[in-house]
């Protein structure tokens, strides 16, 4: 279980979990935050990229759609998609219930792991959400 305070965040409400393998290479797991899911509500569709696709930091890698609106999903880093959570595509309820574990979206092999240092930490992300209350 990864606590939200150990994750890094984008201003567009993606979370990133950074793991370091023994050989020193990094792997980034990406999802969307509970705040984003509550903001969307009524999810109807999610589009995730195929493995092998190259993504760029700040550029969309997929989209998530609710009854009311569609939002793009933005990559926190440059790199290659090494895995997509295809199980979640047909089980959006699970995504809403468990966004930080089984609701992960993609795993990216970053080409420039230093980009991850620019992401928000938990405190900064929480502040951003508090400044934009949903209710």
């Amino acid at each position, binding site marked *: 279980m990864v606590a939200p305070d150990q994750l890094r965040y984008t201003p567009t409400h993606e979370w990133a979990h950074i793991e370091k393998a023994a050989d020193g290479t990094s792997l980034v797991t990406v999802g969307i935050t509970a705040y984003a899911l509550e903001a969307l*509500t*009524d999810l*109807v*569709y999610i*589009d995730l990229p195929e493995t092998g696709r190259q993504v760029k930091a700040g550029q969309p890698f997929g*989209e998530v*759609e609710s*009854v*009311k609106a*569609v939002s793009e999903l933005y990559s926190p880093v440059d790199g290659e998609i090494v895995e997509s959570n295809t199980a979640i595509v047909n089980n959006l309820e699970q995504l809403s219930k468990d966004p930080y574990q089984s609701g992960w979206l993609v795993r990216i092999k970053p080409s420039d792991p230093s980009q991850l240092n620019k992401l928000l930490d938990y405190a900064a992300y929480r502040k951003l959400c508090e400044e934009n209350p*949903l*209710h």
Partner: protein
Amino acid sequence: MDANNKPLLRTPLYEWHTSRGARMVDFSGWEMPLFYSSIIEEHHATRSAVGLTDISHMGRLRFEGPGAAVFLAELLTRRVADMQLGQIRYSLVTNYQGGIMDDVLVGYYHNAHGQPFYVLVVNACNREKIVRWVQQHLPPERALRRGQEVLFSDVTPLWAMFAISGPRSMALLQPLVDVDLQWMKYYRGAQVRILHPAAKRQGGILSRTGYTGEDGFELSIGAEVAAEIWEVLLEYGKSLGATPTGLGARDTLRLEAGMPLYGHELTEQIDPFQAGLGYTCYLTGYDFPGRDVLLQIQQRRPALVRVGLEAQGQRIPRQGCAILRDGAVIGTVTSGTFSPTLQKPIAMGYIPPQHAVPGTAVHIDIRGRAEPATVVELPFYRRDRTPKGT
């Protein structure tokens, strides 16, 4: 603040909405609940039981005096002068080019002294425009014309308005009003007494009208008793599954029912025949703005017609998406959503009539990707009207 930096208007239920954690949004300058828990759940509650929606943002314009009937007949596309007491009609307001300025309900009632009055229910987004339009057509010399006086007032802030929609709407309302609702026909209304002390002996106007495709009613009551009556309705409706529903479900429900929404399917650039609302235009009676133009338009084949669209994929066509056939743009989507009843994306839009045959295969450009879709007949959803027990 709204986009023009004006403070948002609030209905008498504002405190109730926020205390229930509703997601509030700016809708036409009003701070309104989009949903309380979930648009989809509130949608299903309306189709299966009964949903209560605060629609106090709808503009209510009142016309009294001996000249009111003729004045409205000269303003609205629909016949007004022959309306019966308690009758309500769906009508349009058109400009001098025949473009749609608003779609409205006009109701004809008597007050406690037996004097007639009309209520025009207008869209929140058009209220100021229609008020100006009325004032423009009602200068003092017209308003005070001897024997044909017209008294006009915008009573929107004085009255709250609730939509009570769904198969159990009558069961919910009947114990609370002094009229026998089984005899209230569709598009009829009446002044009613609310049989509850919270109403403080005030009456209201109840009509069998709605915007969801279900059986339903709309209730106008005094703003100062509105919040208490709302709670009484929810309390009475508890055992019936009554659910407060926001404007999000109101939109998915009206879309499934194929009903147009001003600012989407209806604009001043659209004429009534394109919109499929030619039946609301009574062109051989009183001379309302745009009537002569509409007589011309009626003779021609419309360049565009309103159609329903069902997407084959999961992505939702939204307002502004281009409609394509054989790679060429033939029209535009005006509204789209996910249909909770059909469990697929649905939309409405305008295309030329030669492409509008139900079953026609088209594509919709959704953010740069052409998604397959089919032209379908409206509405997407029609309730089962079979009497119970047969």
